[in-house]
């Protein structure tokens, strides 16, 4: 029986509010129109109370209260904008700005930045406290995502979306204090990390700390190159979202204006990604039928989402063969642009410049896959632009998007059915495939065309059963990789069985892709309402179409008749199917729960690894496995002297803890060393007693005599200097430890003598 929810009465800014028990002050305040500013808070992520901008005054409390994390209580009196609160908020935002580049005018997120907006609204008009700024190299290694730690404000939304929503655990906060940085494990470049390029980090980033890699330069150049035939394809989800970039409400379908805009930009041919979505369905439906008939490689899992494909290759390599061999619609269209279309216009494939407008950052990486090339090495897709990049191009060209007339897509790769339109929303591929599979198996059309029960699988995965000509097909749909992971674990354990699974990497499917317009400044990223509106734009379009099944697409039919012979033919395979990589699993484990992998992972014969493994084996506490991480790392450091990446990878596999978490812990605590210390480690206590008795002079003398700074090791590996914060031996102050030997009442003059006793030997 559900317990009746207790209601709490309080006042906020003098107005009476009643809200259910457990509501936070922040959410209760919304009821009366009190909008408390936030930065780190995100309704779909855990609450951390990091940024402190949402502080309020609560009567009786000594300090300010972070309203995002604090629950209301009976009789509470809250004030949200006293002069003190306003000044404190202003100062907090200034502190963030003080450690942030002054580059707003040249920043990609100028006028679309949550920090900028909040600084304006809170009245930061001058800087009172500016000082040193952090500086880190930009990581541009990935084909899809740029990480710029200088612009990071450490709100942690990216790390939370990466672990809590996507379950990828690529990003975490490493180091501590002023030196905290969001990074992949071991400070690897994004390209070497476990990142699957979904781009959700940049979707939730309030600033420009994460951005997509910009390929617009190459596209502008091609558009202005008279020798190039520029061909562009537009993915289904673009039309549902691009309008937001021009001030239209979410869910405004802009299909025909996009075509006009692309023509105005100078593209020679504007094709519809939905054409190849129909093609994908036909190939994939045939594949499904074959796999069911042959009863092999089941469940068949969709492969149109490149973030998802990366995820399987990296985290579930044993399921790579379950992926549909069909290329994504983008790949198919690119293939046709380079292989088929040139024959229609009598041009050399080398002259073709193919661009994909995608709601997705991972598509940028997908387009670089060696599998997506012709025998002559021509890439099917030369450049992938996100919805955002296209918006920039349209704005840069001075095109008044909203005032544009409508234009139809070019022929012959421009027609599509309703089935292709819904590709852009979670559940759409499945629904489209079932419409066609039914026809292929039964020869009749599906009576009810809609599968509403599998639409919008955002909060959790959805499942259903359909019967096709007496064959029971169990299906499941997931969007968001965290949901996908839950589903795959059920499949792996045998608890649930399916014939066909659709997975989209991003919550809500492509409409919520990492390349879609920022909604951050005016509403929240991942916002369910925005996702619903974008999805409804696609489902409404489907409803409006007369042809709503992929096999009804006449141009697709024509393509088969003239070039591809028949469904699943050899040439169709050559042109439209691909294969995946089996060798992308990272060295450390990223997905927890794979005990089989843990137990069978090889252990080096090196005695230290053997001992570490034996130590880990003594931990039988599966429930609180995590809590033994620090003891295990302490053991490892004891054995190896420091924690190398290899050792941390080993711990990761054996304890089933993501490497980014281990690296975060290793860089948080003073005890853990990532580099070997000297043979003789001079640790000087800098506790208060030692400090007032002259420990600093001892350190300076050590630095002078050894020629190294604190934290460094001499080149010969003999000496290192370290500062310790209080050995608790204050009676002996100042105190120095050389390895395990204690020296008390040390004076700078004695330092030389002490060093001499540790000469090279």
């Amino acid at each position, binding site marked *: 029986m559900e317990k009746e929810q207790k209601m709490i009465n309080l006042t906020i800014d003098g107005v009476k509010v009643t809200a259910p028990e457990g509501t936070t002050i922040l959410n209760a305040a919304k009821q009366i129109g009190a909008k408390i500013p936030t930065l780190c808070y995100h309704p779909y992520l855990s609450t951390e109370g990091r*940024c402190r901008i949402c502080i309020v005054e609560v009567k009786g409390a000594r300090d300010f209260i972070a309203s995002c994390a604090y629950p209301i209580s009976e009789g509470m009196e809250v004030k949200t904008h006293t002069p003190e609160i306003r000044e404190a908020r202003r100062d907090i935002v200034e502190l963030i700005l003080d450690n942030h580049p002054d580059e707003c005018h040249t920043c990609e997120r100028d006028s679309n930045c949550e920090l900028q907006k909040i600084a304006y609204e809170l009245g930061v008009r001058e800087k009172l406290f500016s000082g040193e700024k952090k500086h880190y190299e930009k990581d541009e290694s990935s084909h899809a995502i740029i990480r710029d730690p200088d612009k990071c404000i450490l709100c942690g939304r990216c790390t939370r979306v990466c672990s809590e929503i996507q379950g990828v655990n690529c990003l975490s906060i490493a180091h501590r204090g002023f030196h905290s940085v969001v990074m992949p494990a071991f400070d690897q470049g994004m390209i070497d990390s476990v990142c699957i390029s979904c781009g959700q980090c940049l979707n939730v980033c309030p600033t420009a700390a994460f951005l997509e890699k910009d390929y617009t330069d190459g596209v502008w150049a091609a558009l202005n190159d008279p020798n190039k035939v520029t061909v562009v394809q537009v993915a289904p989800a673009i039309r549902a979202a691009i309008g937001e970039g021009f001030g239209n409400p979410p869910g405004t379908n802009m299909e025909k204006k996009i075509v006009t805009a692309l023509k105005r930009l100078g593209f020679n041919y504007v094709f519809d990604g939905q054409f190849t979505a129909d093609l994908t369905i036909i190939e994939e439906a045939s594949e499904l039928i074959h796999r069911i008939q042959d009863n092999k490689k089941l469940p068949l899992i969709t492969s149109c989402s490149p973030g998802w494909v990366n995820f399987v290759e990296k985290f579930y390599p044993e399921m790579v063969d379950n992926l549909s061999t069909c290329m994504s619609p983008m790949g198919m269209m690119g293939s046709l642009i380079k292989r088929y279309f040139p024959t229609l216009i009598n041009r050399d494939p080398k002259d073709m410049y193919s661009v994909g407008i995608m709601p997705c950052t991972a598509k940028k990486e997908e387009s670089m896959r060696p599998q997506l090339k012709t025998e002559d090495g021509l890439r099917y897709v030369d450049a992938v632009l996100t919805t955002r990049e296209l918006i920039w191009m349209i704005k840069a060209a001075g095109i008044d998007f909203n005032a544009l007339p409508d234009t139809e897509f070019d022929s012959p790769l421009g027609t599509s059915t309703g089935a292709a339109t819904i590709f852009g929303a979670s559940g759409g591929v499945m629904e489209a495939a079932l419409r066609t599979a039914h026809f292929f198996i039964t020869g009749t059309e599906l009576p009810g065309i809609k599968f509403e029960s599998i639409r919008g699988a955002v909060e959790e995965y959805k499942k259903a059963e359909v019967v096709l000509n007496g064959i029971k097909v169990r299906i499941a749909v997931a969007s968001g990789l965290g949901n996908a992971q839950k589903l795959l674990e059920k499949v792996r354990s045998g608890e649930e069985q399916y014939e066909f699974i659709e997975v989209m990497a991003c919550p809500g499917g492509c409409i919520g892709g990492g390349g879609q317009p920022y909604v951050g400044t005016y509403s929240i990223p991942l916002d369910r309402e925005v996702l619903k509106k974008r999805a409804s734009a696609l489902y409404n379009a489907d409803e409006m179409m007369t042809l709503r099944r992929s096999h009804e697409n006449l141009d697709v039919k024509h393509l088969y008749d003239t070039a591809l012979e028949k469904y699943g033919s050899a040439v169709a395979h050559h042109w439209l199917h691909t294969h995946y990589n089996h060798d992308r699993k990272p060295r450390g484990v990223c997905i927890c729960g794979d005990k089989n992998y843990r137990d069978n992972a090889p252990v080096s014969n090196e005695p230290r690894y053997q001992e570490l493994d034996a130590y880990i084996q003594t931990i039988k506490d599966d429930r609180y496995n995590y809590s033994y991480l620090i003891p295990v790392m302490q053991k490892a450091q004891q054995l190896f002297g420091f924690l190398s990446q290899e050792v941390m990878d080993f711990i990761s596999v054996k304890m089933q803890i993501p490497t980014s978490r281990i690296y975060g812990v290793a860089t948080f605590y003073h005890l853990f060393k990532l580099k070997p210390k000297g043979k003789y480690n001079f640790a000087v206590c800098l506790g*208060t*007693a030692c400090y007032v008795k002259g420990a600093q002079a001892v350190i300076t003398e050590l630095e002078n005599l050894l020629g190294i700074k604190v934290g460094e090791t001499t080149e010969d590996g003999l000496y290192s200097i370290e500062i310790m914060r209080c050995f608790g031996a204050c009676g002996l102050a100042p105190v120095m430890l050389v390895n395990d030997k204690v020296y008390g009442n040390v004076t700078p003059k004695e330092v030389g003598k002490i060093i001499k006793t540790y000469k090279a030997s």
Partner: protein
Amino acid sequence: MTDARSTTYLNRFGDIDYFKKQTRFTLRNCGLIDPENIDEYINARGYLALGTILTDYTPQRVIDDIKASGLRGRGGAGFPTGLKWQFTKDVTSDEKYVVCNADEGDPGAFMDRSAIEGDPHTVLEGMTICGFAIGASKGIIYIRAEYPLAIKRLQIAIEQAKQYNLLGNNILGSQFTFDIELRLGAGAFVCGEETALINSIEGKRGMPKPRPPFPAVKGVFGKPTVINNVETWANVPLVFLDGPAQFSQYGTEKSKGTKVFALAGKVNNTGLVEVKMGTTLREIIFDIGGGIGNGKKFKAAQTGGPSGGCLPEQYLDTPVDYESLAQAGSIMGSGGLIVMDEDTCMVDVAKFFLDFTQSESCGKCTPCREGTKRMLEILTRITEGNGKEGDLEKLERLGSMIKKSSLCGLGKSAPNPVLSTIKQFRAEYESHIYQKKCPAKVCKQLLTYTITEKCIGCGACKRACPVDAITGDPKKMHTIDPDKCIQCGQCFSTCKFSAIERS
């Protein structure tokens, strides 16, 4: 036995001045029993409290007695211990935890280390009593890895207690089962904060979490948890040995019992000092500590470590209890007590503490991560002679914002050393900013060195100078070029004729 200072013959340990004014309750066994021998602890009424409780008490009666004793947390904040236990007892849960916070990270504090090294069983006994009272079967001691001897003694004590069935299943034949496990810290001051400590036990970065939920409701592994520090645990058996009324006899109206201080710094006797609550700072520093050495003048007492404040001479008669120290502008803290003499620069001390908290900031919340950095920059420029008008106001503005807006206790208290020294020693700050002088002659860049007529022209200073700022012919008076001088002080310490003046 003779007192080192008086050289008169003394009959008893307690006749030594250092011990005369002390009341050794929690440290009752330290130095007197063999900490590695459980029998010696038992002989000193050890585990008697636990035995009595398991035979005669209900869990609620245990908590009622703790409440009646007036015992408050010795970790710093002084939260009533009985209340904390009651909250945890009142939560229904399949599992509960008892945690001992032995992550003594305050620079200049060694109460926990000494207490554990001297008498580990009293901590185990206190925790076990709490386990019985709140219905927990598991205890965790989170201790600094930097304390190897304390760790070893705890390990021995736990082993011995298990052998005697004072830990483990059905303790002393009762229905009560309790075990204690050791967890070593990995070097992070912030892990002394209870929610950070919980994260650390759970194998995560030791970063604090917003409260509520409080550990009493959601602590280690999300289960109700009591966290107390070492000294609090050591007090628990005492409440039952002689009864709560006896316990609450000592101390002041709101602060009962005794408090252990780690007395250190510029004081003649350094060491652990246990006094009744309400004893004055003067008694601790001058009667027990033997005053300041080298004929120097007392300048300030720093209590509460990096979270506390500096109290100048006029506060010497402040009684040490939670309220009085807070009123004076400092805090009780866990018991660090550093004495400073006239050679200590208060701006430099404030900078030292802020440098500490700034480098120990976990980086989670903005005010602490960014704000302490800016405060440290301002302080640094003041000590380097680049202070500007308005700097003190900026420090105060940032300081009060950080205090009120930070996520955890570390951030909330980080500005205290700065704010309290500005309050008590404003003139010293102003002298740094406006006159560019450090009255205590500590801040190097503010010093000027000049050679006086005492110089005999030996040339030692000239040779010692790393930047060739000193010139002069042999046997004639030398001079220092102030433009070249880097204020390193090498000449000053080299000169055998006191011919160099520092001002």
